[in-house]
């Protein structure tokens, strides 16, 4: 079972959880997240009729595998699986699944949230929404960078320049390891 799948096909949570747990009766906790397509973009009055997801084939899988490796380093996880859909999706469709298994719930909850915050700011996908006014690329959110920075991740997806990115990374690292922040 691959840990990461980038696919157009839909996924089923219970199938993935069962597959994740199989053969490991030491698992005591499974935590999951599903992201879905909303029918409207916050701050925009127009309805979203479709969302198209572009990605960087090859890099996407590699990037998420590296994120899972980091999650295993930080948290006591027994297994993890990420599925991210690409292509054209409709409101109500599932986009992304993160599911992790651990011995106890604290590590499972944290591992799941960590992977989502990491993916939101570093995984090479781009969303394009179709509205009655036409199709437009979704803007990355500063809130997602802040969520990533809480884990000591660079949190510089929206940074204007990569010198700013390096500064943000340094600031995040300093904030997470030092009392003076």
């Amino acid at each position, binding site marked *: 079972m691959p840990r990461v799948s980038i696919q157009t096909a839909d996924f089923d949570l219970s199938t993935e959880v069962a597959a994740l747990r199989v053969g490991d009766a030491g698992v005591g906790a499974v935590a999951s997240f599903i*992201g879905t397509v909303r029918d409207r973009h916050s701050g925009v009055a127009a309805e979203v009729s479709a969302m198209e*997801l*572009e*990605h*960087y084939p*090859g*890099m996407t899988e*590699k*990037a998420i595998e590296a994120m899972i490796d980091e999650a295993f380093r930080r948290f006591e996880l027994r297994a993890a699986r990420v599925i*991210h859909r690409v292509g054209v999706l409709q409101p109500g469709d599932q*986009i*992304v699944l993160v599911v992790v298994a651990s011995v106890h719930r604290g590590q499972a909850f944290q591992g799941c949230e960590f992977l*989502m915050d990491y*993916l*939101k*700011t*570093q*995984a*090479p*996908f*781009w*969303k*394009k929404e179709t509205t009655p006014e036409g199709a437009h*690329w*979704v*803007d*990355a959110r500063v809130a997602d960078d802040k969520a990533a920075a809480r884990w000591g991740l660079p949190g510089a*997806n*929206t*940074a*204007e*320049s*990569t*010198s700013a*990115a*390096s500064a943000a990374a340094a600031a995040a690292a300093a904030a997470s390891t030092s009392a003076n922040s």
Partner: protein
Amino acid sequence: MAAVTIRYFASLREALGASELIELGAAQTLGQLRDALIARGPRHAAVLARGRAIRCAVNQVMADETVVVTGSAEVAFFPPVTGG
């Protein structure tokens, strides 16, 4: 001098195409590459301008603009990511 392929995604791809070649100078950083691309013309300048958030990757790994690019590298420029 080697020619390296620059790949574009999302709104950059719509403006500049999926990829283009650029001649690589010795020990050139991603930042210098971006400046060279900006100099290619008004459409490049508009979408890659300093002050716009542009992310980059070398050999399919996120990189900052201080990274030095060698001739066999795969380089990509793209907007801030919006997956998940």
